């Protein structure tokens, strides 16, 4: 036990071996992630340099061939474009609607807690079921949404049948499910804001819009950025919603990068190419989240 005696003592002189405690507490977690997360990631990188498919005799090292093919593959760029729309348009809609909802619920109407409870439900739903549910709602022949739109005398768009519309429909369905997430986070922050600032603004004669633009919004910014980052990442990697809603179609109109990787890996069993697509996604994710989180912690330091 000589090592225990030589170990750095905690500030109360507890004779516990901190290093041993650390290993016991952190070891299982780190080891587990090394085996079941890091090793697969490394393996995936290795796969992306091979031509492995489900067929026997494949798996040769082909260097950067998959990546070279990727950059010249119009289907990859189509998928990248769809991912950009899903993330860009989706996060914009969800942030605007989420902040609007938070301001609305800040009126503290009676019974509003019931509606807040309802808004949690979409987030808990299995994405595949959300997709199927909306496929029913938007059915051109008998769907409830088209019936409602027709009965007020308008003509509904071809939600999932037109290539251009389908990606917008996907964004709208994703927003139905996840705007509440942005709302919850922004609302929690809004309710925690000090009230004296708003009283001071009112005394100074600031109108509601000026108060919102100049005071509320800047103070909500950390929460908004946080929610937006999480939504961006989850929208980027979502593929089960697409699986249930549109299966990437029509004509690849809703094939995002995540779905493209899935199709190559599972349907066409091009393991090597799928790994390359997944790594392209990981690079975008790593760069994106690093930049955004640097921005986040910077902001936290300022507030």
């Amino acid at each position: 036990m000589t090592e225990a005696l030589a170990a750095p003592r905690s500030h109360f002189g507890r004779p516990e071996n901190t290093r041993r405690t650390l290993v016991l507490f952190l070891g299982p977690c780190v080891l587990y992630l090394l085996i079941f997360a890091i090793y697969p990631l490394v393996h995936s990188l290795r796969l992306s340099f091979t031509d492995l498919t489900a067929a026997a005799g494949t798996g040769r090292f082909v260097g950067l061939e998959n990546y070279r093919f990727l950059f010249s593959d119009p289907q990859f760029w189509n998928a990248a474009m769809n991912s950009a729309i899903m993330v860009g348009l989706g996060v914009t809609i969800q942030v605007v609607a989420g902040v609007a909802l938070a301001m609305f619920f800040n009126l503290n109407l009676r019974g509003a807690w019931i509606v807040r409870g309802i808004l949690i439900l979409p987030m808990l739903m299995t994405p595949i079921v959300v997709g199927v549910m909306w496929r029913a709602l938007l059915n051109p022949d008998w769907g409830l949404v088209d019936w409602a739109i027709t009965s007020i005398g308008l003509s509904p768009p071809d939600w999932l049948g037109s290539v251009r519309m389908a990606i917008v429909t996907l964004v709208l369905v994703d927003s139905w499910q996840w705007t509440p997430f942005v709302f919850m986070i922004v609302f929690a922050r809004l309710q925690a804001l000090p009230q004296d600032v708003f009283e001071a603004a009112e005394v100074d004669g600031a109108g509601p819009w000026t108060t919102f633009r100049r005071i509320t919004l800047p103070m909500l910014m950390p929460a908004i950025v946080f929610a937006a980052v999480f939504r961006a990442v989850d929208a980027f990697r979502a593929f089960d919603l697409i699986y249930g809603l549109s299966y990437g179609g029509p004509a690849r109109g809703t094939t995002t990068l995540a779905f493209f990787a899935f199709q190559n890996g599972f349907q066409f069993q091009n393991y090597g190419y799928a790994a390359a697509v997944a790594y392209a996604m990981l690079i975008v994710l790593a760069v994106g989240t690093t930049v955004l989180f640097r921005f986040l912690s910077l902001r936290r330091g300022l507030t």
Partner: protein
Amino acid sequence: MTRPRMTPGRMLAYATLILIGIGGIAPFLYLAILSTKRRIEIVAQVPPSLSFDWQVAARNYREVLWEQGMAEFTLNSLIVVSIATLLAVLIGLPAAYAFSRIRFRGSDGLASFILSMRFMPPIAVAIPLFLMMRWVGLTDTYAGLILPYVAFSLPLVVWIMIGFFDEIPHEIDEAAEIDGASHWQILTRVQLPIVWPGVMTAALFGALFIWNEFLVSLYIVNSRSLQTISLGAATLVSAQRPIDWNIAAAVGVVTVIPILIFSLFVQRYIVRGLTSGAVK
């Protein structure tokens, strides 16, 4: 506080509130209604009538639960989800404690590294995990699903639990330290009773993620009898092929009902879990 009078503005606000509530719940109610109809009624009645033939509903659910196997899939999911969540909490809890309470070099780096796993697209690891499980002969077993799923929910558990541990004032464990308690004793005897809501929250979100996941099970599971509920739902209602909508709707309801029941019991933890890490 005096009750404000009903001005036109407030009436408009309440109307908006009701509309938001309907927008949130109507899609699910619609799905539930469709699940009680005959196949031809779905096409013929627009909007679906609210007079129900419960025998038809019972027939739909019988078919989904027994003939299509959703009852068995639900049981599989319950087994996989509970074991994997339990393991993730057991492994993640001490780790979160260490990040929150023990100062060591590289603590922040390691913590953010583990948390960054939360952002990993499952598609990036699904194929290697499948090859790994095949190599050790665990494809088509519960263990083959549980092992990867623990890794998926671990970062969530650690992430949520660090937040809860950070909230406990340091005075509490300092008092225990003076009494000579080890970190293990502080964790199990002093902090665990306090962070119990946090453990529930972490378990809930770990479980929810596993319940909804189906990409990995798509690779690992071959035999029908081992399918999980989301995988079963996916194969029954995939957008790939035409489907019987009454059956698809019943599949959806069967998939979502357990989540709704569960969330009723743990309602107060949900908001906290969703916003964890956000509000500092």
